[in-house]
């Protein structure tokens, strides 16, 4: 797997392989975007600091210009005026990025409008982007229509302490999925009937799927009180420096 320091052999493959639906401009454009800062940083600073790559930001590629926007995306753009912030497309998946305050409104629209009829909530999850200023979390709902057999993703960007209205009233399936998001990311849902932790014990501290949650092996203290463990670890690190 990791033989030699050359990731070169992968590069010739990458441009050749993406075939369907004009996906190729996407990766190159995206790959080009994060390069300038790292290049600018590399010559000026000593090596150890240059090693620390800038934390990633969400890809959210814009759809290629020659690709027609499907009817359900156009319907949301015109039907819920001003809610759609961005439309993104990648390898065949359409994503509608909406304002967090209107997430539930857009979901209701997508479920009830003829031509959309997204009656099935496949998945609801979150992504943590600590590097993004102001809006830390992405809340992602994957919808499916059992009548029209189409898929769309709805995404809302949330600040760390921002609550979002629950979609359990729209799809009862969201109940446990929202509980899991609350458990793993600490995102709060207003109007949820029963917002408890789902997988972790009820007295657990911290939210494990956050990127800043410690990954190291569980000692006794970590199991009992992760916050205290974190403090102890930081104190030890500071003492080490002195």
């Amino acid at each position, binding site marked *: 797997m990791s033989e030699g320091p050359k990731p070169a*052999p992968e590069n010739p493959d*990458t441009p050749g*392989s993406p075939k369907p639906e004009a996906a190729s401009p996407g*990766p190159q454009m995206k790959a080009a975007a994060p390069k300038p800062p790292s290049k600018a940083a590399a010559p000026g600073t000593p090596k150890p600091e240059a090693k620390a790559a800038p934390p990633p930001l*969400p*890809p959210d590629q814009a759809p290629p210009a020659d690709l027609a926007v499907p009817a359900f995306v156009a319907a949301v753009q015109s039907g819920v005026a001003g809610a759609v912030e961005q439309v993104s497309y990648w390898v065949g998946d359409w994503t509608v990025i909406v304002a967090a305050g209107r997430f539930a409104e857009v979901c209701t629209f997508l479920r009830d409008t003829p031509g959309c009829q997204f009656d099935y*909530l*496949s998945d609801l*999850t979150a992504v943590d982007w600590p590097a993004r200023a102001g809006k830390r979390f992405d809340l992602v709902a994957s919808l499916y229509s059992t009548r029209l057999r189409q898929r769309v993703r709805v995404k809302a960007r949330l600040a760390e302490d921002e609550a979002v209205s629950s979609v359990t009233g729209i799809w009862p399936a969201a109940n446990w999925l929202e509980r899991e998001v609350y458990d793993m990311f600490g995102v709060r849902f207003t109007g949820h009937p029963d917002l408890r932790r789902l997988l972790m*014990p009820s007295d657990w501290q911290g939210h494990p799927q956050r990127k800043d949650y410690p990954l190291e092996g569980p000692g006794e203290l970590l199991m009992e009180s992760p916050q205290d463990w974190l403090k102890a670890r930081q104190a030890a690190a500071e003492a080490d420096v002195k």
Partner: protein
Amino acid sequence: MHTDTPLPMFDTDELVINMGPQHPSTHGVLRLVLKLDGERVIDCDPVIGYLHRGIEKLSENRDYTQIILLTDRMDYVAAATNNLGYVQTIEKLYSLEVPRRARYIRTVLSELQRVASHLLWLGTHAADLGALTVLLFGLRERELVLDLFEEYCGARLTYNTMRIGGQPVDVPPGWDRKVLAFCDVQESKLPEYEQLLTGNRIFMERTKDIGVITAADAIGVGLCGPPLRASGVYRDVRKDEPYAAYDEMEFDVPLGVRGDTYDRYLVRLEEFRQSLRIIRQAVQGIPEGPIMGKAPRLIKPPAGETYHAIEAPKGELGYFVVSDGKSVSPYRFRVRPPSLCNLQALPQLVRGHLVADVVALIGTIDIVLGEVDR
């Protein structure tokens, strides 16, 4: 729930009991907090997480190839379909073309896996209802499937048998004939199960009209797989969003009418026949050619995100993967486990039924706790 009954000696208080986490019918570590009025269930609150290993978090710190064997450990009685869903998601993220031969082999493996998973379900479901013979029959045939898997990839439970871009090994010589022979054996055994259960009066009394859920409710609560189809919803990822070689296969999607436990049994039983039909077509039609596509040696998909779903034996198994384009591990790795979404419907199903029916209803939604908790 105090009523003005003239007999004060009857205590009509609600009783809250724990069923599990160590209960033989929960097939793992599932705790149900049942609120009872006598023998009747008023409410049910499933408590899960006993088997939580943090596979999503682990995967965000492993490279793309190492994750394949983590997916084995989710639904550990259907490891091949877990592998398939994952590798296809990464292939989609890469827009990788998988050779036709590999897609056929994957189809055979995932249908064999469906047969094995349904056999285990059939046996344990029937055993929960008191029919122990069916468990022995089911495990007997499942052994044959495991032998086929062992011959193909060397493992019997956690196969780790797919790679991003294709298949790691070709089918051994003569394997296709053995698969066909297994299909004949399995086909001949199906009437035996039916003889024991389908017309069995005890089984029918325990399953008919138990846990009825309408099509609209089933869609709303996110049921997937056989339980959703038993409510009469035509939804099969293999048909709606074909993957592997399913677009070249001929098969039917069995649907139920009433949406009760008996229908869910009939649907799965018919799925045996359809799976065998697919296996026969696929194994006879395996084309010549390479088994591995042009996958790079270092898997590092371009920045982007995708959700990809397959029809696992338990239902819609989805993977949502975000790649940042710079790292060799996914930035976000999310599994949409069918068992979790089906288990969520359990309180709705058991309300108003007897405690003994809870056992039947846990069996009918066919959960594996390794997948529920991840």
